[in-house]
């Protein structure tokens, strides 16, 4: 026995020694703090394809915007600025003329031509290649090269959102025709990568693992200070936190609110909460009983304590949604103060359990009923808010079974004709005030909501180019539709981004990460 256990001890010791020796000779971790030429970024989710037209989660936009650009970009205030086009003008309601930069160059050194831009737009219009973009670009009449470096785009009918669509927040990631055709079918994968014009070039992509970027000297904006950017996909939130505490991460997107204080307590760390243009609301399906009864929907709307949800569930990191468009989406039209004032004018369903009980009593199901409310696992705050709502509704006799599902299953429940009540959780990239409301109240909407007056106002807003008139029309449509309760707004959300090892971002804004954002970071000391 003693001999046996001694042998075992010797073996164990040898294994441990081997592991230690191995750890001494191999570099630990992808990055170490103190390096200001290399940035390591942690993403909470995983990317499987880099081409945003193919896979279009919000994180795909953030990653691709490091390497690719549109004709224009949106600055921190959401204003349109030149990008690959040094200038642009809207000649009439349907005609836009863009002039490309003289020094616009792809990562392989070839100049950007008008033909490349037209090619990129054509690829974005193709539903098979770009399922995520095709819908946006259906209204183009023609694209023509009308001069040296000059592109003229004509629309079928006026579209107030078109100018924004030509940026990376919209639907345009300019790529090289020659490169695409040489790598047909593999663009965005590990073997095809991306070809763009931005300050960094993709040099390696391993799906579900990481993307590696290297700085280039071909960007019109100059050579970035950073030499490389590595983005690691770390799905488990505890692992991500540990990696940050071990100094291996410089920037982390979408820090869970429940972990924010732990991230903040890391030395040299800063957590920024920024309104992220997201909208959360209850979504009713008007074709599903008993939610086809307005009184039932009124009972739900009165049973939500939105102030309490924002202060306790979100910890104050969000705002009670007074309408579907976010305040930021109305800044261009009204400015920040004007947007707040305009949003405050609409009538609201106040939290009032007596009113909820009265509405239920007057409904087709006065004795109450049982229903299900699903929420995606990636939105734990939606789950906690659902439980609060269920507790309130239980008091008036409605049983709500709250169920966590995968994001894929949740997506499939929206407008499936079976779930009478659900969540709408929408991240707008464009920041256009009409984006979410057109989806919720326009044609093919998930609520089966038909209101001609609302549709007419939204259609009018679609073709209206004056921002103030347009915003007026959108808010009018929202206020007109609100009593019908196809949707009940809950909150406008925020996202938390952690900056570590002394890195910081001086211009926090929802639009910043759809620009070449690594060039905007600075490191203290």
């Amino acid at each position: 026995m003693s001999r046996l256990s001694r042998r075992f001890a010797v073996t164990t010791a040898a294994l441990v020694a081997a592991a230690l020796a191995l750890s001494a000779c191999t570099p630990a971790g992808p990055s170490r703090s103190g390096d200001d030429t290399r940035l390591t970024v942690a993403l909470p989710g995983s990317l499987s394809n880099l081409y945003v037209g193919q896979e279009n989660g919000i994180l795909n936009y953030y990653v691709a915007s490091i390497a690719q650009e549109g004709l224009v970009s949106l600055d921190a205030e959401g204003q349109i600025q030149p990008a690959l086009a040094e200038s642009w003008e809207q000649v009439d309601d349907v005609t836009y003329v863009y002039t490309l930069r003289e020094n616009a160059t792809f990562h392989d050194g070839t100049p950007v031509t008008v033909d490349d831009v037209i090619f990129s737009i054509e690829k974005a219009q193709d539903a098979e290649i770009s399922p995520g973009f095709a819908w946006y670009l259906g209204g183009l009449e023609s694209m023509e090269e009308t001069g040296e470096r000059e592109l003229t785009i004509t629309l079928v009918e006026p579209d107030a959102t078109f100018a924004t669509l030509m940026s990376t927040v919209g639907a345009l990631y300019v790529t090289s025709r020659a490169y695409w055709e040489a790598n047909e079918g593999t663009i965005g994968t590990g073997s095809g990568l991306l070809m763009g014009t931005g300050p960094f070039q993709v040099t390696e992509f391993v799906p579900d693992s990481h993307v590696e970027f290297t700085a280039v000297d071909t960007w019109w904006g100059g050579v970035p200070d950073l030499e490389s950017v590595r983005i690691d996909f770390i799905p488990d939130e505890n692992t991500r936190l540990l990696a940050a505490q071990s100094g291996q991460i410089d920037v982390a997107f979408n820090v869970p609110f429940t972990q924010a204080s732990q991230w903040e307590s890391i030395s040299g760390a800063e957590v920024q909460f920024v309104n992220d243009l997201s909208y959360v609301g209850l979504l009713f399906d008007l074709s599903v009983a008993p939610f086809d009864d307005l009184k039932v929907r009124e009972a739900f709307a009165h049973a939500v304590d939105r102030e309490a949800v924002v202060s306790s569930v979100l910890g104050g990191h969000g705002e009670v949604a007074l309408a579907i468009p976010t305040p930021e989406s109305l800044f261009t039209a009204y400015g920040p103060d004007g947007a707040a004032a305009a949003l405050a004018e609409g009538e609201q369903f106040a939290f009032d359990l007596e009113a909820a009980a009265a509405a239920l009593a007057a409904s087709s199901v006065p004795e109450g009923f049982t229903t299900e409310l699903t929420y995606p696992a990636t939105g734990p705050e939606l789950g906690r808010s659902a439980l609060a709502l269920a507790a309130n509704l239980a008091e008036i006799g409605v049983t709500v079974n709250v169920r966590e599902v995968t994001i894929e299953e949740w997506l499939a429940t929206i407008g499936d004709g079976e779930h009478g009540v659900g969540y709408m959780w929408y991240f707008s990239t464009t920041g256009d005030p009409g984006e979410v409301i057109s989806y919720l109240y326009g044609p093919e909407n998930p609520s089966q909501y038909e209101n001609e007056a609302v549709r007419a106002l939204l259609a009018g807003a679609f073709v209206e180019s004056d921002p103030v008139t347009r915003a007026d029309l959108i808010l009018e449509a929202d206020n007109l539709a609100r009593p019908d309760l196809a949707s009940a707004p809950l909150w406008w959300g925020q996202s938390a981004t952690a900056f570590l090892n002394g890195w910081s971002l001086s211009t926090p804004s929802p639009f910043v990460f759809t620009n070449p954002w690594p060039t905007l970071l600075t490191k203290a000391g």
Partner: protein
Amino acid sequence: MLTLRLLGVLVIVAVLSVLIFGMMHLIPGDLVRNLLGLRPASPETIAAIREQYRLDDPIWLQYLNWLGNALQGDLGTSIRYQVPVADAIASRIPLTSMLAVMAMLIAAVTAIPLGVIAARRHQSAIDQALTGFSVIGLSAPAFVVSLLLLYVFAYYLPIFPVYGGGTDFGSRVYHLVLPSIALAVGLAAILMRLTRAAMIESLASDYVTFARSRGLSELTVLGLALRNSSIPIITAAGLVFTYVIGGTILVETAFALPGLGLMLQDAVLFKDIALVQALVLLIAVVIALITVAIDLTYAVIDPRVRRGRRAS
């Protein structure tokens, strides 16, 4: 005999392929929605996508289509990754197979000696302690063990990396030490208990008493008993391999490893049918082949099996 076994594997794979195809249509979710996200889409866009992936064909036709291509060696294209399924899987095999092999090795070199020690000191304090540990090992979920290992050996004692799979062979082994330990804990617990049970029986046998009475060294006696216990141990080791496959999903998530487990989980959720089919069939074939391999090792270990086969 071997040919018959391999034919059996083929039948199982064929039946499984039908079952999986059917089940993928039953699980919640919608491929078109997964591709579009929460974007508004025109009916034309939706029709184009459904046409592209032949979603409007009846299920049996979709299956026959897949089968026809698969029999010609074309496993289709992964919708999620937009690369051929064979390439997507091939890129993940090295990492996951290394993880599984390392976990099995760690489990074997720790559990079998510990099982022998426990059996030899049956009902002693050591035995009870080891049995107690095995209960903890069995009941601790792999993601909890992963997190614990990360805290201790990557954070407090920064010996190992927190996440990632490494690049060259050396760094890959180094990156996989903690994940394979996390995966090995549950395996080792099962193996240890089975080794202990088999050894207790063997050590109580007459031949052991006789061997001891002949004055053979204790180590030789243990060697004899272990060889006689090895058939149940090896059978169990093969069976618990299925546990490894389930465990890789949790461990790969915890350590951010781009492996097959994570890929399978995402593919099922995304309804990436061609990828799920190929992955599940690959797993089925691996399990079936391991079972066949175990049967073959019986002959190596046990002369009676060898003779029996020759006689038949």
